[in-house]
């Protein structure tokens, strides 16, 4: 077992355990805090996959922004998120079944696919390639995304604004 594998398994464990805590914690604040190791683990996986730029973004946005945002909201809506309140709905068994089957199916698919060897040596990682992709073939997607950001910005302000 080489270092890469070791790192992978450690990160995978971190991700999955974190994820389990996210969905399982009765206390929402705990769940939100468990989100941090999960997302960091994913970021680690990105490092293993030679995606340093994505890693950076992942940490910046997810860990830095979204998690904090979620924590704020939990605090803002304190009255409804306490431990007194039932946190699960009535379809737990059904959901468990469906999710289980789905995961099993995914795994079956993974196992049945004949993965060939990697398609050759990785080229040197180059964030510039990502930039070029964004601005040349995917410029439309890029623009649309920015529009979506704008819209969500405006939308969030309008929705959350205290009416008066």
């Amino acid at each position, binding site marked *: 077992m080489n270092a890469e594998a070791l790192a992978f398994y450690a990160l995978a464990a971190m991700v999955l355990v974190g994820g389990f805590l996210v969905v399982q914690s009765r206390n929402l604040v705990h769940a939100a805090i468990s989100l941090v190791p999960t997302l960091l683990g994913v970021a680690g996986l990105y490092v293993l996959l030679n995606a340093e730029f994505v890693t950076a973004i992942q940490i910046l946005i997810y860990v830095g922004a979204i998690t904090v945002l979620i924590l704020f909201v939990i605090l803002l809506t304190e009255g409804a998120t306490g431990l007194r309140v039932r946190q699960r709905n009535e*379809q737990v068994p059904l959901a468990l079944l469906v999710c289980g089957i789905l995961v099993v199916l995914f795994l079956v698919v993974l196992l049945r696919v004949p993965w060939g060897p990697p398609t050759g040596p990785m080229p040197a990682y180059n964030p510039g390639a990502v930039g070029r992709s964004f601005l040349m073939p995917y410029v439309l997607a890029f623009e649309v995304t920015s529009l979506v950001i704008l819209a969500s910005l405006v939308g969030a302000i309008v929705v959350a604004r205290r009416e008066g």
Partner: protein
Amino acid sequence: MAQLAWLVPLFPLASYAVLAFRGRALGERAPYVAIGAMALSALLGWGAFLEQVAGAPPYVWRAVWAVGGERTLTVGYTVDPLSSITVAMITLVGGLIFVYSVGYMRGDPYYARFFAFLSLFCAGMLTMVLANSFLLMLIGWEIIGLCSYLLIGFYFRRRSANMAQMKAFLTTRVGDTLMLVGIMALFWQFGTVDYHAIFEAVREGGESASAVVRLGGWEVPLATLSALLVFGGPVGKSGQFPLHVWLPDAMEGPTPVSALIHAATMVAAGVYLVGRAYPLFFYTPHHEALAVVAWVGTLTALLAALMALAQDDIKRVLAYSTISQLGFMMAGLGVLGYAAGLFHLLTHAFFKALLFLAAGSVIHAVGTNNIKEMGGLRRFLPVTFWTFLAGFLALAGVFPFAGFWSKDEILLEAYHHAPAVYALLSATAFLTALYMSRLVAYTFFGTYRGPAHPEPDPWTPEDYARAGLHAPHHGHGTPHESPRVMTGPLVALAVGSLVVGFVGIPGTGPEGGSWIHHFLKFEGFKEAGIHAPSFSWPLALRSLGVALAGIAVAWLVYGLRAVPSERIRAWVGPVYPFLRNRMYIDALYGWVFVRGGLLLAAGLRWFDVHVVDGLVNLVGGVTVVTSRLHRLFDTYVVDGLVNLVGWVTRGLGLLLRPLQTGRAYNYILVAAAGLGLIVLVSLWRL
């Protein structure tokens, strides 16, 4: 001149347009427009007529009016002896009536409207006469029907006038519809509506002319059928039995209208059309269509004369007399007296217009229509009396007045071609003299009785106020003679009633015949070897004798009262009320057609609302109930019995409703399960 004949109907039309839009502003000057237009028409019309007299060839002009596939429907006009002499008559008599109306209608709040309608009427009438296709003829024909409608109901405040105008339009429309079907049949047969093309085709008797149709079990020659259908129009318009009922009621209109439309011109249109379409009738097997025309005419003449005997309204007597005389004309045409029938049409226009106008003068003076309330008027109205007398003598057929010559022609033809018709027509001639003498006796002789109930003013004070006039005061002391503008036309027409007949004097034309015979001749007779019988003195004396006998009998009964009419009335029993009530024909029509039609309409309306629409609503109701049932069962029964297309969607919606909880996580669960299913399926195929 003939090339300009298209202008003849256009002058009155222009006058109509001017009066319709500017009539109110013109006010008292309105008649000048109408009379001026009529004078121009008369000028052109007489020019064309004199050209024809001088022997000019007939002039025909056509234009395409409408297309149907590769066929065309043409309109146009013909100037030939028949149309030109009729145009001359209409413009002359019509013009005189216009002049008379200036006096008669003065002070009426709708003065301009009256002249507008009269002008439109003349435009339609002249169009109809000059037309050279059934299409244009029909257009003119219906326009005069419209004007008749408008003018009968001119006093539109009166309920009786409203009813009369509807009766007139609808009754004639029945005839017109038959004629329309006839024209359709002609178009089917010959593919054209042009007079000349059709007449040429029937004369040659080709394949299409001798076609036969099956009606039930009968084989009817198509030519006869279409001729008889076309005859439906004249039956309606010329008040022939059984569609004569409208004409007496049409007397609700102002008197000049009665004179112009319901005596001199419009009602003669039917006769004119039969004359115009004579080949159509003549070239049927054994002239059978003409036989029908003859018998309808004879019957009408006799029945109307009988009914005239029992009427008390001066205009109604004249109306029945008109019907009777129109029957005479039809009978004349029917018994192969082509020229005779049309000659009578011309003379009749003069003396009947005269009689009506004179009657109008009488009514103007005494303020009632009832002859029982008149009497002794010859002293008060000398001009009216003498002119009326001229008309009376012409109508009765007394030598040398116009009626004598033309009626004698008809009787002559009937004597030679149809003796039964001759007998009946002679009886009618007797009756004619009788009822006319009765009228004269009651009106002008004896003592003045005065109206018990003067006619109410047809207008309301608001009408006068709106027109800026003052309501006239109807103080009827002693009757007084009408103004010159009214008596002038009377005198002119009286002269006409005397002299017009002279064109029928034997020897005025070539070969010892009369001029009118020569001028109006039907080519088919010569080809078929039919010769017009020549004038015979014994026959003429006999008809004169009949007329004088009628006058004498009337003199005994109504003048000398040797046998008072009351006694005769008691003596004949139910015959008098039978005649007085128009043989109950009007009542019968009222019950069968008017009430029956309204009842049927009401019944169908009920049917429409409750049955046809009821079915629709039932279908709707059933679907609604079905969907309610679904709502009841929606948790238990998955029932697909939603069988109406429009409601399938809603039914399905109701079925699926329990699945739609509105909770997003339920939906996501289903979506996830669906995703699993998709993976499973793709695994299967992997």
